[in-house]
């Protein structure tokens, strides 16, 4: 149950970040020489990627926590995509970005709803199925 929650949290964070990239693409759609940016990997590839190696914090007192890396520490690589260029050299297609945005919205909603259902199941288990 805990793993599912973490995975869904990661998914929501991923779709929000991708929404930010798409927003920046739309905002740059009329700036000469700009290209569309997106994540290099899909969400599935991203969550399967091992966490980056990092020095762990020393625990010098009983109350200290080790500071393990979480989903938020996975760094997604951003790439520029080639598209059809207009006279100004801008290669961002608003239509493509709008399609991406619709997908992001639906996927984020799906992750949020699943997370909510997951919490409901947890509550149900705590109440002993009542």
């Amino acid at each position: 149950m805990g793993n599912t929650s973490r995975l869904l949290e990661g998914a929501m964070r991923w779709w929000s970040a991708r929404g930010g990239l798409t927003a920046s693409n739309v905002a740059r759609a009329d700036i000469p020489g700009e290209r569309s940016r997106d994540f290099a990997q899909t969400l599935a590839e991203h969550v399967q990627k091992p966490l980056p190696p990092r020095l762990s914090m020393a625990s010098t007192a009983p109350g200290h926590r080790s500071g393990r890396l979480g989903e938020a520490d996975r760094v997604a690589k951003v790439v520029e995509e080639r598209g059809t260029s207009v006279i100004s050299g801008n290669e961002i297609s608003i239509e493509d970005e709008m399609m991406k945005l619709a997908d992001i919205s639906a996927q984020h909603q799906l992750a949020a709803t699943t997370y909510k259902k997951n919490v409901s199941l947890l509550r149900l288990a705590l109440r002993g199925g009542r």
Partner: protein
Amino acid sequence: MRIRDIFGLSGSAMKAQSTRMRVIAENVANTETVDDGTGAPYQRKLTVLQAKLANRADLRSVQVGRIVTDRTAGIKKHEPGHPKADENGYVSYSNVNPIVEMSDLRDADRSYRANIQVVDTAKRLFRNAIELMKG
């Protein structure tokens, strides 16, 4: 980029697009202007948008970089009775082409609407997160 940052970014892009529309409106209004106050015909203006970056990959806002003047020559009409006619009877008009301006206006309008759509989606993502807190 956080969801909240999208509002600022898209808002700045909408502001830049509205400045672009204002400049286009100025151009259209001055299509027939033969004297811009300096004695020369009106020259169309162009808005150059610029990205303001926090770092190489992170866009913070979009702003109007500068407003430049299009120096191409305007049309000349043979109107000997016109007070602005030269010694050969020709009047120099502005270099504004209403068809080009209308096409530019549609482009700015499309970008403006696309940014509204982005704000709408960001609002939806925000609402999804708030819904989680309701339990």
